[in-house]
């Protein structure tokens, strides 16, 4: 979001409140974007419980667990980064953001391994409804992770250039909120796909 361009009042605090309202509205749209897929999931799971049970066993559970931990940790580093930025600890903040990006890339790396494994077992989107859902959901989530990485890199560049201060760190906070949302979606995807199938 172009939070920096916000005209939401004169003071940085007002501008931040405006930008926050913007990003929460955006997250509302994201809820409904994923909502379509969740609806599909519920409909088909109720229709074909056996299929979901047998198919979900084919997923790599340990890797799913690892990825959950990775993403939750990246949320932590993001939150710590924002807190550091608000204290004016720029080096600590940039370190935290860099770590977040690293973890996000790690998440995608694990995802890559998982998908390759699936492909090598002949499991594709279209193989059956479960795997269609699995690939669509993790795929759409993956796209959001990629977008998050881009946003985080942008924030990192701005932070390195010294654009932020304890008074003004709107883009960092906005990106943080988005990033936590990406984490939130995964928190639901993980049990739905890997654990209860």
């Amino acid at each position, binding site marked *: 979001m172009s939070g920096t361009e916000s005209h939401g009042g004169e003071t940085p605090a007002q501008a931040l409140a405006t930008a926050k309202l913007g990003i929460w509205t955006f*997250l*509302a749209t994201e809820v409904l974007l994923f909502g379509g897929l*969740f609806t599909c999931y519920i409909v088909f799971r*109720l229709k074909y419980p056996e299929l979901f049970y047998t198919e979900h066993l084919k997923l790599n559970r340990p890797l799913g667990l690892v990825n959950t931990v990775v993403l939750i940790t990246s949320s932590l580093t993001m939150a*710590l980064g924002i*807190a550091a930025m608000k204290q004016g600890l720029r080096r600590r903040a940039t370190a935290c953001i860099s770590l977040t990006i690293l973890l996000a890339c790690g998440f995608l790396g694990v995802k890559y391994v998982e998908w390759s494994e699936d492909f090598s077992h002949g499991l594709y989107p279209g193989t059956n409804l479960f795997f269609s859902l699995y690939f669509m959901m993790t795929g759409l989530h993956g796209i959001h992770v990629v977008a998050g990485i881009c946003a985080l890199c942008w924030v990192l560049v701005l932070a390195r250039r010294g654009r932020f201060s*304890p008074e003004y760190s709107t883009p960092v906070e906005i990106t943080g909120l988005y990033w936590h949302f990406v984490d939130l979606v995964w928190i*639901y995807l993980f049990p739905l796909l890997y*654990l*209860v199938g």
Partner: protein
Amino acid sequence: MLNTSSTKAYRTYILVWLALLVLTVVTWLVSYVHLGMLNVTVAMLIASMKALLVALFFMHLRYENRLLWAFAIIPLGFLTLIIGGTLADVLLRD
């Protein structure tokens, strides 16, 4: 709110993170116990607890005003709506 008690904020974040990890492990372990339909319920309950932790602490919802709470909750209502309306058809079709 954060810069005044920053060490406390760091500590909160780390505690939340630990809680999230514990819940992840719990949901992982529970999935190996066969409880039938209860498996889904437990998994979703734990996921929602985790989601709540992320929203309240990492996303600062705890410190936000009512307007932002409304913006966070209303879309969930509409999500329920699309799921409910679709199920009203799909489940009751003969």
